[in-house]
């Protein structure tokens, strides 16, 4: 997803770190990584440590971190739209205007990164500290408990206690119902393909007016309703 951008910008003190939230381990992520032939680091996160540390709830989400290790854009949707919700469930075809809107959103997101890499703190896409704090997703006690419960479930699955582990992961998903990364990982550990199966689509439909990928709030974007 990021290879062309990385190759373009890598001489400018810029790196992409892609983290695969992948409890089935490196082998689950390997085909995609080998296919994309990335030259930036692609890390395997079986325990969703990065999701826990940065309060991520879906993929792809991203955080912008400056040279000093400061967050200049906290966790947010990374260059995707939710046009897939308008997909024809039988043919998997997406309406043309949704395809175009998705591609345009992605271009704008990549351009925003280019602007940041070129201008640093002067970039209009860099948030000041107050705004960055305001946008940082807050941990609630339930979210913190969801992460602990996820860790327990993952440990049980890894140690041959699959059914108990999956039940525990289900509890984690219930504690943080907004975290698609928990529910879909649980479904994937249960049966490969389940994370994108009928139950997933029913959950997406149940969102109603709510977003699956909240639109990124950046100059040049239409303000999210």
């Amino acid at each position, binding site marked *: 997803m990021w290879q062309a951008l990385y190759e373009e910008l890598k001489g400018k003190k810029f790196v992409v770190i892609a983290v695969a939230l992948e409890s*089935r381990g490196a082998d689950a992520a390997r085909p995609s990584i080998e296919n994309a032939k990335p030259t930036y680091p692609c890390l395997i996160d079986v325990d969703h440590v990065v999701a826990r540390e940065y309060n991520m709830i879906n993929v792809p989400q991203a955080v912008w971190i400056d040279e000093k290790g400061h967050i200049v854009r906290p966790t947010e949707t990374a260059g995707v739209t939710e046009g897939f919700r308008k997909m024809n469930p039988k043919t998997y075809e997406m309406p043309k205007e949704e395809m175009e809107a998705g591609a345009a959103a992605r271009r704008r997101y990549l351009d925003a990164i280019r602007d940041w890499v070129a201008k640093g703190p002067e970039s209009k896409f860099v948030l000041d500290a107050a705004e960055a704090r305001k946008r940082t997703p807050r941990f609630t006690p339930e979210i913190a408990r969801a*992460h602990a419960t996820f860790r327990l479930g993952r440990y049980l699955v890894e140690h041959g206690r699959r059914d108990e582990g999956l039940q*525990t992961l289900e509890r984690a998903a219930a504690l943080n119902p907004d975290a698609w990364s928990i529910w879909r990982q649980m479904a994937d550990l249960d049966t490969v393909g389940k994370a994108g199966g009928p139950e997933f689509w029913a959950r997406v439909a149940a969102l109603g007016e709510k977003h699956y990928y909240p639109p990124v709030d950046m100059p040049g974007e239409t303000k999210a309703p």
Partner: protein
Amino acid sequence: MTTIISTGSVHKVTDRPDGSDLWLTPQKFEAITGFALKSEGFCRDAICVPIPPGRERDLHRRRKINIGGFAALTHRPWVGTESGDTWVLEEPADARNEALRSLEAPDFELPDLDGRKHRLSDYRGSKVLLASWASW
């Protein structure tokens, strides 16, 4: 044997829990939590959490410390299996919010496909786009 997973590391102890109470020696307790019991309360680095009057016996007695009670006192998630043989202790939500408010990117270490470890802080000096993805 009881397994305790705390900030990523796995500890094994011979002590058995009673409900969510698990009584450990001060040495084991400190190895797992990083906190030591002092006259000021539970202390880690320069920070001490005082023990409220009347709660002492739920937290320490007969030279043992109740890690489950400590978790409740300090709002740390403490999640166990039904049989109580495996537990996870996590940092509290407030501490995570506080840490993120500093806008310092939390550090982590993860392997790549070849098993080589990378730390986020290895990339200090560059701008980093930290992006999640998954096969599912």
